């Protein structure tokens, strides 16, 4: 257009612009993708729903309430085909946020390309395929670390040989920041993960020595950008420098092209607020600057969250707004006309050096423990993250860390943005889950059962023998194996895993805090009045693995004097109900961020009823729209906490009063 005409080849090419999206069904998501592409989006970023990410078919009991919620449900090749209908795959650059089941979704993608008549060798895109970080954040792992590393490795080895323009793994520091990581920790753990994966690829012997440079050249990263955008710029420059040194020294890669630190970005969601959500727009823009301003450390792909993410699912218009932010920066401003703005700046250089030396020290600690896998298994990394996040939460609580609209300048005029009938968010049609299940069951009935059986037997043989998992997975995709069937075979061979929760960090409450002391005294007095210490069960039902909230409540609860029963993520309603009864807790606290809170609360209440424990009070925290909160309270849930509630001492005090009233004691007067 005219803009291009004025500045012919002086300008850099803009980065890939994507929007992380997908919901309800393959058909609905396909319509959304085609609409987004027509608006100028230049790549796709597929969000899968939790059953797909954790390897369950849509009709599995654990999938109830989760189908189509946080992404698109993909049960089989038919769904995958519908997802990319009229989207020619050879022209598309598709990023898939998929980890434990990444080999399977890539296999489906390859099989769909074949059906479209596209040579799989031409495919371009990214499988996130960084399962190690799932043990630390996000939680969609299935298998123990060793087989997980093997699956990551298999994709790397396969794509380097057969789909050369594919990014087989996107090593994520993104989710580490969401779990509380400091910039130093992000650098250290992402690079330690890269070492673990590259070492494993090397050790697997699947790639010839002389091709190893290609492997290194295909490794990409997925990074977060927070609101401290100057420091974040420095972090990206530090990543550049550290990666360059690492791959040269450790893997002997000499070609500068293969040594380039290639990364995509989703800017920070952790810092987006539910209060005065319009402020998130300027947060997102500033965060985008962090990964674009420095030409030498500029992102190759960017996806921005929508302003209303902390409220619920964004609508198409909200996503369009996020895309327009990128387009304005790339096309209207003069940013892309200049070389690097920061080269030679002593301020920037000093900060970069500080981050590098901090990260190197932490990488050393990880290496001493035997590397990233061992440091994850021992709980070391998770504890460090929980500690960082606890410190962050405390800084917000004390006001040392300012968040506009949350702990300062809370007064606001009524927002016209959230005034509409939909309260400014999208709701997934509950009918979507039923439709998906019906179509899955019809699909199963229609396929060649014998061929499916043979494909699964081949898959099992490959899983056991150690052969690359991709060929048998692609064969399985072609004949109509389902996501649940593929995963079940591997579950049987590899076993399942529960990762350390990391909440066993040292006392975080030793600093003088009158507010904590006051709560502690209330907990103690109430325990005395009831004859025994107060017990709180923290349950994460469903498939959602976002455990920050649960972990922070667990740590704060322990510091306030509660005895905390916390078993980690992905529990069934029956497990939660039984644990509450067996442990004799005074209160059940649930944490759900996937949007399936209504179904899960209903199921847990039914389970409690079944075992004769329906008198136990329940509270819940999560991304819960106000209308749902009202409904939950009407059903007897004692309190609903949302991201707006940042004062954790006040939350604890409220829990004490809920327990007191449940036992006929008068509540304490609480300072507000």
């Amino acid at each position, binding site marked *: 257009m005219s803009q291009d005409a004025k500045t012919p080849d002086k300008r850099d090419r803009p980065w890939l612009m994507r929007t992380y999206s997908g919901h309800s069904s393959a058909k609905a998501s396909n319509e959304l993708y085609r609409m987004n592409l027509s608006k100028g989006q230049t790549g796709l970023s597929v969000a899968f729903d939790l059953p797909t990410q954790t390897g369950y078919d849509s009709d599995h009991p654990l999938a109830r309430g989760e189908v189509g919620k946080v992404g698109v449900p993909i049960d089989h090749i038919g769904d995958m085909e519908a997802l990319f209908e009229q989207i020619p795959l050879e022209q598309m650059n598709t990023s898939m946020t998929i980890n434990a089941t990444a080999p399977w979704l890539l296999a489906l993608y390859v099989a769909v390309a074949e059906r479209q008549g596209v040579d799989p060798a031409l495919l371009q895109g990214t499988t996130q395929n960084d399962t190690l970080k799932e043990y630390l954040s996000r939680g969609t792992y299935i298998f*123990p670390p060793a087989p997980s590393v093997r699956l990551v490795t298999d994709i790397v080895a396969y794509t380097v040989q057969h789909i050369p323009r594919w990014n087989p793994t996107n090593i994520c520091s993104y989710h580490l920041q969401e779990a509380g990581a400091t910039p130093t920790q992000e650098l250290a753990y992402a690079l330690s993960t890269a070492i673990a994966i590259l070492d494993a690829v090397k050790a697997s012997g699947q790639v010839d020595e002389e091709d190893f440079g290609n492997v290194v050249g295909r490794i990409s990263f997925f990074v977060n950008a927070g609101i401290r955008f100057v420091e974040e710029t420095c972090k990206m420059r530090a990543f550049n420098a550290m990666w360059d040194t690492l791959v040269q020294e450790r893997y002997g890669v000499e070609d500068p092209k293969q040594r380039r630190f290639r990364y995509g970005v989703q800017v920070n969601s952790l810092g987006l607020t539910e209060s005065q959500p319009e402020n998130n727009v300027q947060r997102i823009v500033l965060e985008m600057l962090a990964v674009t301003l420095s030409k030498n450390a500029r992102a190759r792909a960017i996806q921005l969250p929508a302003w209303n993410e902390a409220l619920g699912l964004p609508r198409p218009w909200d996503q369009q707004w996020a895309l327009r932010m990128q387009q304005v920066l790339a096309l209207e401003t003069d940013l892309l006309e200049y070389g690097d703005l920061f080269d030679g700046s002593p301020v920037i250089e000093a900060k970069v050096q500080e981050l590098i030396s901090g990260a190197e020290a932490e990488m050393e600690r990880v290496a001493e423990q035997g590397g990233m896998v061992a440091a994850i298994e021992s709980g070391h990394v998770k504890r460090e993250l929980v500690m960082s996040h606890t410190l962050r939460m405390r800084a917000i609580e004390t006001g040392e860390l300012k968040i506009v609209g949350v702990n300062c300048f809370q007064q606001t005029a009524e927002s016209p943005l959230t005034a509409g009938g939909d309260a400014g968010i999208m709701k997934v049609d509950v009918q979507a889950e039923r439709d998906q299940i019906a179509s899955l069951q019809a699909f199963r009935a229609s396929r060649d059962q014998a061929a499916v059986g043979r494909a699964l037997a081949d898959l099992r043989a490959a899983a056991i023998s150690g052969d690359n998992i991709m060929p048998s997975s692609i064969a399985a995709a072609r004949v109509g194996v389902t996501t649940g069937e593929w995963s079940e075979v591997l579950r049987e061979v590899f076993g399942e895993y*529960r990762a350390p*929760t990391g*909440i*066993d960090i040292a*006392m975080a*409450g*030793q600093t003088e805090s009158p507010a904590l002391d006051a709560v*502690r005294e209330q*907990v*103690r007095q109430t*325990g005395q009045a*009831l*004859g*025994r*210490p107060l017990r709180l069960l923290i349950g994460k039902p469903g498939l959602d693995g976002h455990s920050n909230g649960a972990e922070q409540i*667990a740590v704060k*609860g*322990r*510091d*306030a*004097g*509660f*005895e*905390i*029963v*916390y*078993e*980690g993520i992905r529990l*069934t309603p*029956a*497990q939660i109900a*039984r*644990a509450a*009864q*067996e*442990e*004799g807790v005074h209160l059940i606290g649930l944490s759900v961020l996937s949007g399936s809170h209504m179904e899960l609360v209903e199921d847990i209440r039914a389970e409690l009823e079944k*075992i*004769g*424990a329906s*008198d136990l009070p329940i509270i819940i925290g999560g991304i819960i729209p106000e209308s749902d909160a009202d409904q939950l309270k009407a059903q007897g849930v004692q309190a609903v906490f949302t991201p707006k509630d940042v004062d954790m001492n006040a939350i604890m005090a409220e829990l004490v009063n809920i327990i007191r009233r449940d*036992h*006929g004691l008068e509540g304490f007067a609480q300072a507000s």
Partner: protein
Amino acid sequence: MTASGKAIDPAALATAVRRGERVALASALNLLDDRRAASRRVAAEFISQLQLGQSQTQGHLIGMTGPPGAGKSSLTAALIAVWRRQGLRVGILAVDPSSPISGGALLGDRLRMKTSAGDDGVFVRSLACRGEFGGLSAEVWPMSLVMMAAFDITLIETVGVGQREIDVSRMCDTTCFVAQPGSGDSVQFLKAGILEVPHVLVVNKEDMGAVARRTLAELGTALNRQHSDGNWEVPVLSVSATHASGIELLAETLARHHQVLLSGGGLPARRRRYQAQWILKRLQDEFGTFGIDKLGGSDAIMRQLAQQDLSLFEQYHALRHNLLSLYQQTHD
């Protein structure tokens, strides 16, 4: 229904616990946790009712202890799977440390004891040690009586890093010590004399290979294999909880020790003796030498506990009550 307000009928509760009813088990354990004077009286009555007419050899009480990180909870989970396959019902008491500052605790052992949620044959209660008594929670003993009344096997899991912690397993029929390969702890434990207590030694994580084999060898050679109980040679087993190897043999060994105790005929007397020692220790912890002297010295207390026909738990409460009132008079 909970111990929170509604009146509890001790006899009815005891009957329901013996039947293994989960609601009853939960409220019985809550009752024993309750430190209010009125609840303690109901608890004493309940325990007497529970033991009324109950076989003196009911259940098998197993103590599992070892240093942190040795994989006790994973091993417990693997054992539960074996026992459930054999049709045995299992109760678990898992003891975790408490924070000395807030009194709060993280009870995380269930995490690694992932059991099938629909299984009525398994019941897990976690306990914070609550700091007061050197790592031992006061409620462990009475709670173990409840579990034993309801389950074929009751297992108490504690972190055993010193003499005091291992005491909790000393009151069990069978004590199992889990060693961490390569930590060097095992040799320290040997030196400290802790390893004279367990009846079964286990080196977990045999998948660690050479390190595990070395620890196994160290224990094997350094240990006096003849247990001081007599009639029992202490086996040293190599297992892997994560790979479920050696678990069947461990379960079999624990059962064999139980058989030896049963066929020797001394189990009831031994349980009484252990429990009496436990009571004495608790009284010492709570009231010191002053208290013990006031009751006529430890020998006299032991003789008295051994002779009387009253439930030990009731006697314990009577002794404690006496001392408390004495103490109050002294300070009046």
